[in-house]
């Protein structure tokens, strides 16, 4: 991963983490604020419920007191005093009075607990009313009232009237139903729901809502069931079709503190949900903007930081490619400026060192050349010196001997002078290596001419020669230079097989290149010998100049190819020449320089 990308990642992650952290903090604070406000509103609504409960209770007490003062109540009391009492005239009395007094439930019971008349369940006459046989509460209270079709919660009040030793109980109530809940002024987003029933699990039928029967009533089941088990206030978050809602549940208890139902205050989390969505949208926007800024900033910083580094890297690559003059412009005074300065200093030192090395090598080369030249020239000079000394001594011995010696010496002198000229010519050739003249060259013809030149030597040393040319088409090459190269390699091979052997000449096309192999079965080369084989003036032969293979390498290199050697001691040596075919040059004018 590049520095630029790392920098971008660093900047982006920093921005994103920051935005995420801020978002989380704001979200948490918003939620806490919403929860706190919700708790306060719930408490206010519950307090309002209790106030309404007390007000309604007082109103019910007032109404049943009014009933107690009615003539119907007195007639019932008189009837109760009869033996046996006849309550049949009062079958519908409670219904009529309840309607007049706007009471949902109204029952009259005698002091034996027998219901005389019931508004909510007229058929229940004659049955027992437990409230009349116990000491009824003196203040309004909640009670679960059995009805023909189930039961209902009511806010009850009881009063009694008496005459002589008879008492009449008047039990009136208002049902805790939708109209009761409608009196509560719930803040926007809040609802009050009643659940009637203290046990037996959850049933949606027992829900009484201030708005409507809850469509998502089943969501309330867990909190109701928990309340039925613990009888303790509880809170929960439910998921409804209209969104999330907070639910606070409070047990509703009767006169004996038994749980009769539950008051559920639901609060929509829509405002918080919207706020949270807005926070998230803002965070997303901020993150996007931050990301853009991060990209721009990282690009700018990367540009400031990486440009010098890239320039440094470019200069280093250039240096590695051999450009000893590579330098980096220094435009900063920071660490990167120091680095660039160090690089420039390094390149300068490298250049100096290189120059010194070149000079040193050049001097060494001159010394080597001088040594070689001296060595090569010294060999023929010694016979020349002896021949001249013989001539001088022969002058002293007489004309005849001198003549004989002169003839012999003259021949020797000519031979050695020829040797000297040959040596000088080789050095001259090496110093003046001509550029290849590319022309169509058929390798089989080249091989044929070279082999023909060495047939006598091959025959003399009993070397079998095998030529395999698998290249039909002509290639572009300098026939004379390649001829010289092959001839040199064949000569070396013949020298390597003084006891005879096998010489292989092979040529084939491989991957668009021409591969030429010259293989002998001589004694082979040691690894050290193979490594120095192409070094000028290196030779393993007693009378070699060490220039043959150097010249061959120079020719092959000038053709754009390369020469290598593969050898193992005792198993022969193979020289491998790889040449580009250069067939594209065949259409060019013969003699074109590459």
């Amino acid at each position: 991963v590049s520095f630029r990308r790392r920098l971008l990642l660093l900047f982006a992650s920093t921005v994103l983490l920051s935005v995420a952290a801020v978002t989380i903090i704001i979200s948490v604070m918003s939620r806490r604020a919403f929860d706190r406000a919700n708790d306060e509103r719930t408490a206010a609504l519950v307090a309002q419920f209790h106030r309404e409960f007390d007000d309604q209770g007082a109103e019910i007490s007032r109404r049943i007191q009014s009933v107690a003062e009615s003539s119907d109540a007195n007639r019932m009391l008189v009837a109760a005093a009869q033996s046996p009492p006849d309550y049949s005239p009062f079958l519908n009395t409670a219904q009529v009075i309840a309607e007049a007094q706007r009471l949902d439930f109204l029952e009259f019971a005698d002091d034996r607990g027998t219901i005389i008349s019931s508004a909510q369940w007229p058929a229940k006459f004659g049955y027992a009313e437990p409230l009349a046989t116990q000491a009824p509460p003196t203040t309004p209270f909640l009670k679960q009232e059995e009805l023909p079709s189930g039961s209902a919660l009511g806010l009850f009040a009881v009063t009694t009237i008496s005459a002589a030793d008879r008492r009449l109980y008047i039990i009136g109530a208002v049902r805790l139903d939708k109209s009761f809940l409608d009196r509560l002024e719930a803040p926007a987003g809040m609802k009050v729901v009643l659940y009637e029933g203290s046990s037996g699990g959850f049933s949606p039928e027992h829900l009484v809502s201030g708005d409507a029967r809850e469509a998502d009533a089943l969501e309330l089941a867990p909190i109701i069931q928990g309340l039925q088990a613990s009888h303790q206030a509880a809170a929960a978050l439910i998921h409804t079709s209209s969104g999330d809602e907070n639910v606070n549940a409070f047990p509703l208890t009767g006169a004996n503190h038994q749980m009769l139902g539950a008051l559920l205050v639901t609060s929509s989390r829509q405002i918080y949900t919207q706020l949270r969505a807005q926070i998230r949208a803002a965070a997303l926007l901020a993150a996007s903007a931050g990301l853009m800024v991060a990209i721009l900033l990282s690009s700018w910083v990367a540009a400031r930081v990486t440009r010098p580094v890239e320039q440094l890297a470019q200069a280093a690559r250039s240096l590695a490619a051999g450009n000893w003059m590579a330098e980096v412009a220094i435009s900063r005074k920071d660490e990167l400026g120091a680095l660039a300065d160090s690089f420039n200093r390094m390149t300068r030192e490298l250049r100096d060192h290189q120059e010194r090395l070149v000079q040193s090598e050049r001097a060494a080369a001159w010394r080597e050349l001088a040594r070689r030249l001296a060595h090569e020239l010294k060999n023929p000079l010694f016979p020349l010196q002896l021949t001249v000394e013989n001539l001088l001594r022969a002058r002293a011995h007489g004309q005849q001997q001198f003549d004989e010696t002169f003839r012999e010496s003259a021949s020797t002198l000519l031979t050695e002078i020829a040797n000297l000229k040959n040596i000088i010519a080789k050095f001259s050739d090496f110093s003046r290596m001509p550029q290849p003249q590319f022309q169509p060259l058929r390798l089989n013809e080249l091989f044929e001419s070279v082999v023909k030149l060495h047939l006598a030597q091959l025959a003399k040393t009993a070397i079998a020669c095998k030529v395999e040319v698998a290249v039909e088409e002509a290639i572009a090459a300098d026939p004379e230079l390649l001829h010289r190269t092959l001839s040199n390699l064949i000569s070396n091979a013949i020298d390597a097989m003084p006891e005879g052997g096998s010489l292989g000449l092979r040529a084939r096309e491989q991957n668009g290149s021409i591969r030429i192999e010259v293989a002998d079965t001589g004694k082979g080369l040691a690894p050290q010998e193979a490594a120095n084989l192409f070094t000028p003036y290196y030779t393993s032969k007693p009378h070699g100049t060490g220039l043959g293979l150097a010249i061959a390498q120079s020719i092959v290199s000038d053709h754009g190819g390369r020469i290598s050697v593969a050898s193992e001691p005792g198993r022969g040596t193979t020289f491998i020449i790889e040449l580009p075919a250069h067939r594209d040059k065949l259409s060019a004018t013969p003699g074109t320089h590459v």
Partner: protein
Amino acid sequence: MKRFSSVLIAAASLLSVAPALAATRPHYGGTLRIALEESPENFDPAALDTPALRSLSRLIFENLVQMDDRGQPQPALAASWRVEPGNQRWRFQVRSGVILTDGTPVDASTIAASLRAGNPHWKIFALGDLVMIETDTPDPNVPAELGLARNSIVRRANGRSLGSGPFLVEQWDAAAKHLRLAANNQYWAGRPFLDSIEVDFGKSHRDQMMLLDLGKTDLVEVAPEQIRPAQSGNRNLLISMPEELMCLVFARDPQSDGEVRLRTALARSIDTTALNNVIFQAGGEPAGGLLPNWLSGYEFVFPSGSEAGAPERSLEPPITLTLNYDSADPVARIVADRLSLNAKDAGVHLEPLTSDQAELRLLRLPLASLDGQLDLEELARSLELPLPAFGDPSITALYTAESTLLQAHRIIPLLHLRSAVALRPAVHQFQIGADGAWKLENAWLSPETP
């Protein structure tokens, strides 16, 4: 049947009230105004099933015979009849000179055609001025059956039903629920005293009483539970004997002994006395049997509801039975509630069900006739129970048949309810039979005094 005719005579004498016995001379003319709760769709006598409607039907249509207050068949369109030995072939001499309201004579063929429509199991022949009826099995009750409203002689033509009664339909406005009957001047027994009768249908009992109190009507129905309050209001009432059977009817026969025990426990749990005294304000009597005691003379041997002894313990686990009743009737609703309360004590949960598929139905069945055997037959027929078999017309046979019906555990009798009417003092010679039937044919109105 004659054994308890004395009871009927006594009952009838009790029910005839002072106005009918007034020494005032009958007065021709006037329009009697009646308000009724029921609202019939037509006036085909086969479809009129309440005592009041049947009474109206008798003003328009006649039968071959009519039952008197003692439950004895009396000549009507049949001047006389005789039966051949074996009680399977009956010959009725058709009264001569009777004409339908369109002027066509009522002959044997008209009567035979009318009777065939309602009695497919009879073979009916018109032989000159005789109508001959043959039954598959001996049937001593043929004359009584011919007195039923469904055996009224009617000729149906062009969507109209024509009769030969003392009144004829002058106007019927189904939308306004108003009927006007005019006196039949050609009536073979003589023109009635009243010129016309106007009936307003579909009036609740409360509205009827208000119309009566306001002088807007002359005669109204009084529901059983309203009889006592009406009496306390010093209104002019005519009250029948307890005749309408209120009962619980099971949809099917019990399938096991456990089901028999359940039905017995349910029957015993019901406090019929409280039902009668409180809900119906003593407007009837607790019923142990299907026929009222004044008719059968033996009903007291069948204990009523909890009089038979409350169930020893409630059923465990509680059993639920679905109960169907007329939910539009507030009295039926409160009765059903009371039954549910009582049944709950016995471990039976009665669940209201408006569908006809309910296992139990709360029904009110008016007395069909003053003939006990015929009543049992009609009751069994209307409830689709096996028809009782009577070996002879004795009270023993009647008791045996009723016991058999009760022991089938398909019916739990609850109450026998009275029917009553309230009428203005200007109405004279109006009578209500023991079976709740109205006798309007001889009624007359005294002139209004300013």
